[in-house]
């Protein structure tokens, strides 16, 4: 069972557009929600992360919006560039628990930014 559901599977935008990637979760124990960017043949790189005590977080051109009641969060990429073309993964983990704080990943969104 997929603990974090991600959509869309793929996304094509023009340069300067604002792609939006959405994720949803069911486990209310999740307490930390990172986004990773992955280029072909590379490992995932941590982009930005949010805790549920805030509804929005911005870092550069990347913004996370978080809706705790709906158990949803999304990534917005402002002024997208061709260099942003990559696969994006949302993830979630319960931080304060015994045992491992393993990440549960979404299925990924392949973003293509057309020049």
């Amino acid at each position, binding site marked *: 069972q997929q603990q974090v559901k*991600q959509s869309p599977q793929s996304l094509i935008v023009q340069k300067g557009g604002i792609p939006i990637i959405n994720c949803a979760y069911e486990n209310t124990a999740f307490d*930390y929600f*990172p986004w*990773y960017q992955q280029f072909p*043949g*590379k*490992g*995932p*790189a*941590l982009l930005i*992360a949010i805790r549920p005590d805030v509804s929005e977080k911005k870092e550069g051109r990347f913004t996370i919006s978080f809706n705790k009641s709906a158990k949803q969060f999304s990534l917005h990429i402002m002024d997208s560039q061709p260099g942003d073309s990559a696969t994006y*993964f949302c*993830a979630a*983990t319960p*931080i*304060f*628990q015994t*045992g*491992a*704080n*393993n*990440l*549960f*990943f*979404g*299925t*990924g969104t392949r973003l293509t930014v057309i020049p």
Partner: protein
Amino acid sequence: DAGVTQSPTHLIKTRGQHVTLRCSPISGHKSVSWYQQVLGQGPQFIFQYYEKEERGRGNFPDRFSARQFPNYSSELNVNALLLGDSALYLCASSLAGQPNYEQYFGPGTRLTVT
């Protein structure tokens, strides 16, 4: 500052063989996690180690095992390889097992089983 390093980069094995993958965490990081990423999917958690002790294990068979050394580097071992074990194996390190939560990934080892 060096990131997470993994070796080898690529590996080709035959069904039934054994493989050992290696990971060195970011300097100062004491926790290492292993993930399997099948083509087209998100990474799946295999193990987490902190201070040389196993902190958690994902839904993988006993053919998968790991250990962490005193210098916090780690090995992932897979016995009796199956075709379905072909994947990108990722190592991630974090400052502490918990509650510190930022995990940084290495470039991965691409394993192909024929």
